[in-house]
C-alpha cells in the first residue's frame, strides 16, 4: 500500500474513531478497556491492516481521554474510569463558578499530553528496539524470557500499590490457575474470550446482580437527574486556556508518565501526579484547576506511551496498558497466520512509514477532538445525555464480547467468559486493580509453571 493511500485511509478511520469515541467517552460508566479493546480486537481478528488499526486505536485513545472529562467538568459525572480522580477537582471548580474554565483547561491539557507523549515516546521506542530482542531471550534462575520478569515485577508493584494489597497479592496465583485451567478445558491456548471477560467483568457483574433477589440496593424510583452548568463562547486559541505553569507541568508530567506507563498503571500515575500537584498549592481553587489540567495531560500520555513503547520497542506487553486495552496488538491471531499484529506491522512497513502514519493519525485526532470539544462540548453532552440510552451501550458491548467468546471457544467460551468476568469483577470491586488481572493473564503459563 503506498503512503498516500495509507494516509487517506488513516484519515477516514481516525475521523470516524474520534467521532464515535467522543460520544462513548462522554457516556457515564463506560470503561476504557471495555469499550476500546473489543472493537480493536474485532478489527484485528478480521485481518484488517495493523497500521490502519493502530491509527484507529490512537484516534480512540485521544478522543476518549479528552471527552471523558467533559461531563466531569459540566456535571461532575465522570465519563470513564480514568476521569474519576478529576471529580473532586471539578467539584471545587464548580463551587467557585469555574466549571467552564476547568472544561477548557482539561481539553487543552489533553492535547498537550498527546503531543508531548507522541514526541517523546515514539522516537524513544525506536531507540529501545534492541532491548526488545534481549527481553525475548530466556534468562535468569527461572529461565523465563526477560519480559516475563518485567511483567511479574509489574504485577507485584501494582499489587503493593493498590488499595487492597493483600487481596491483590492473593489474587495472583488463583487467577493464573483459573486462566490455565480454562485453557486446559478448551484444549487450546484461548486468549480472546478470557481477555474480553476481564474487560467486561465489572459491567457483567452489575447486570447479573439484577437477576438476584438481593438486588434491592440497586433499585431506583426515578430517572437520574443531571445538572449541566452554564457555559459561554469558548476561544479556539489553546494559549488562552492554560497558564504558563500549567503548560509546563502538564508537558513535564505527561512526558514522564508516558515513559513510566510502559510498566505502571495509567490510573495510578494520574492519581499520584495529580495529587502531588494539588497538594503543592495552598490555594484550594488554584490547586484543583492545576491538578485537573495535569491529570488530563497524563491520561492521554499514559495511554499513548503505555502502548507505543511496548508495541514498537519491546514487542511484548510489559504493563497494564499493553497487557490491557492495547493487548490485541500482541495476541497471536489466526487472521495473521498465527503471528501477532505487532509482528506483521513491523514486517510489512518501514520505520519511517510507521512513524509518519502514527504521528499523523494521533495529531489529526488531537486537533479534531480539540476543535469538536472546545466548540460543541455543551451541545454534545446534552445530546448524549438526552438521546443515548445506557441500556443500548451496555447491551452492544456485551453482545460483541459474547460473539467473540463464542468464536474463540464455542459455547464453552461463553460460559468461561461469564466465570472469568464474575471472578475478575469480584477482585476489582474489592480494590484489586484490573491491570493486575490483565498482566496475570499474560504471565499465567509461567506463574502456574512455578506450582508444579
Amino acid at each position, binding site marked *: 500500500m503506498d503512503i498516500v493511500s495509507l494516509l487517506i485511509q488513516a484519515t477516514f478511520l481516525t475521523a470516524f474513531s474520534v467521532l464515535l469515541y467522543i460520544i462513548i467517552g462522554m*457516556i*457515564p*460508566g463506560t470503561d476504557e478497556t471495555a469499550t476500546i479493546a473489543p*472493537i480493536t480486537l*474485532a478489527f484485528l*481478528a*478480521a*485481518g484488517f491492516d495493523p497500521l490502519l488499526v493502530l491509527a484507529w486505536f490512537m484516534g480512540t485513545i485521544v478522543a476518549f481521554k479528552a471527552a471523558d472529562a467533559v461531563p466531569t467538568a459540566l456535571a461532575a*459525572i*465522570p465519563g470513564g474510569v480514568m476521569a474519576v480522580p478529576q471529580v473532586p477537582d471539578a467539584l471545587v471548580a464548580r463551587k467557585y463558578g469555574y466549571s467552564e474554565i476547568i472544561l477548557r483547561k482539561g481539553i487543552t491539557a489533553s492535547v498537550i499530553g498527546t503531543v508531548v507523549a507522541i514526541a517523546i515516546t515514539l522516537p524513544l521506542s525506536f531507540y529501545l528496539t534492541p532491548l526488545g530482542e534481549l527481553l525475548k531471550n530466556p534468562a535468569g534462575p527461572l529461565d523465563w524470557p526477560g519480559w516475563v520478569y518485567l511483567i511479574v515485577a509489574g504485577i507485584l508493584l501494582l499489587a503493593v500499590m493498590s488499595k487492597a494489597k493483600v487481596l491483590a497479592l492473593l489474587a495472583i496465583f488463583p487467577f493464573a490457575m483459573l486462566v490455565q485451567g480454562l485453557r486446559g478445558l478448551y484444549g487450546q491456548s484461548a486468549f480472546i474470550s478470557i481477555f474480553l471477560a476481564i474487560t467486561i467483568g*465489572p*459491567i457483567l457483574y*452489575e*447486570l447479573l446482580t*439484577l437477576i438476584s433477589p438481593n*438486588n434491592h440496593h*440497586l*433499585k*431506583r*424510583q*426515578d*430517572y*437520574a*437527574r*443531571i*445538572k*449541566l*452548568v*452554564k457555559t459561554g463562547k469558548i476561544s479556539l486559541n489553546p494559549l488562552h486556556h492554560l497558564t504558563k505553569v500549567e503548560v509546563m507541568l502538564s508537558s513535564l508530567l505527561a512526558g514522564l508518565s508516558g515513559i513510566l506507563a510502559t510498566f505502571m498503571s495509567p490510573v495510578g500515575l494520574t492519581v499520584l501526579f495529580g495529587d502531588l500537584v494539588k497538594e503543592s498549592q495552598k490555594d484550594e481553587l488554584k490547586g484543583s484547576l492545576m491538578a485537573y489540567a495535569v491529570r488530563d495531560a497524563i491520561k492521554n500520555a499514559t495511554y499513548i506511551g503505555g502502548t507505543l513503547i511496548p508495541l514498537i520497542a519491546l514487542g511484548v506487553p510489559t504493563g497494564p496498558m499493553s497487557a490491557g486495552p492495547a493487548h490485541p496488538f500482541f495476541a497471536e491471531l*489466526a*487472521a495473521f497466520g498465527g503471528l501477532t499484529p505487532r509482528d506483521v506491522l513491523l514486517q510489512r512497513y518501514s520505520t519511517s512509514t510507521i512513524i509518519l502514519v502514527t504521528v499523523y493519525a494521533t495529531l489529526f485526532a488531537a486537533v479534531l477532538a480539540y476543535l469538536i470539544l472546545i466548540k460543541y462540548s455543551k451541545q454534545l453532552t*446534552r445530546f448524549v*445525555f*438526552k*438521546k*443515548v*440510552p*445506557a*441500556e*443500548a*451501550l*451496555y*447491551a*452492544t458491548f*456485551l*453482545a*460483541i464480547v*459474547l*460473539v*467473540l467468546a*463464542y*468464536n474463540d471457544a464455542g459455547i464453552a467460551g461463553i460460559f468461561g467468559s461469564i466465570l472469568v468476568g464474575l471472578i475478575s469483577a469480584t477482585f476489582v470491586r474489592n480494590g484489586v486493580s484490573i491491570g493486575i488481572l490483565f498482566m496475570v493473564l499474560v504471565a499465567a503459563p509461567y506463574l502456574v509453571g512455578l506450582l508444579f
Partner: protein
Amino acid sequence: MGKTSQNLYEIFGEVIAEHDFLKAFLITGGLAFLMYFSAPKIVSMLGREDLLNALRVTLSALGAFFGFIVSTAIIEPKRIVEEE
C-alpha cells in the same frame, strides 16, 4: 417524565430499566449472532471461502452496531437533564 412502569436500577451512576436492557440485549445479541452465522452463506455467495474467519467477526460487530442504532432509537434514556 422520569417515571416508568418498569423496575429501575442504578449501575455505574446510570439508571437503566430491566425490560429495556433485555430488549436492547436481545436486539444487539440477536443481530450479532445472526450475522455471525450468516457469514458462511455470504462468503460462499461471494466465492471467497478464504475470508470466512475475517468476515464472521466483522459481520457480527456490524450486527451489534446495527443493534445499537435500533436500540438507541426505540429506548428512552433514563436521565433528566437540567440546565443551570
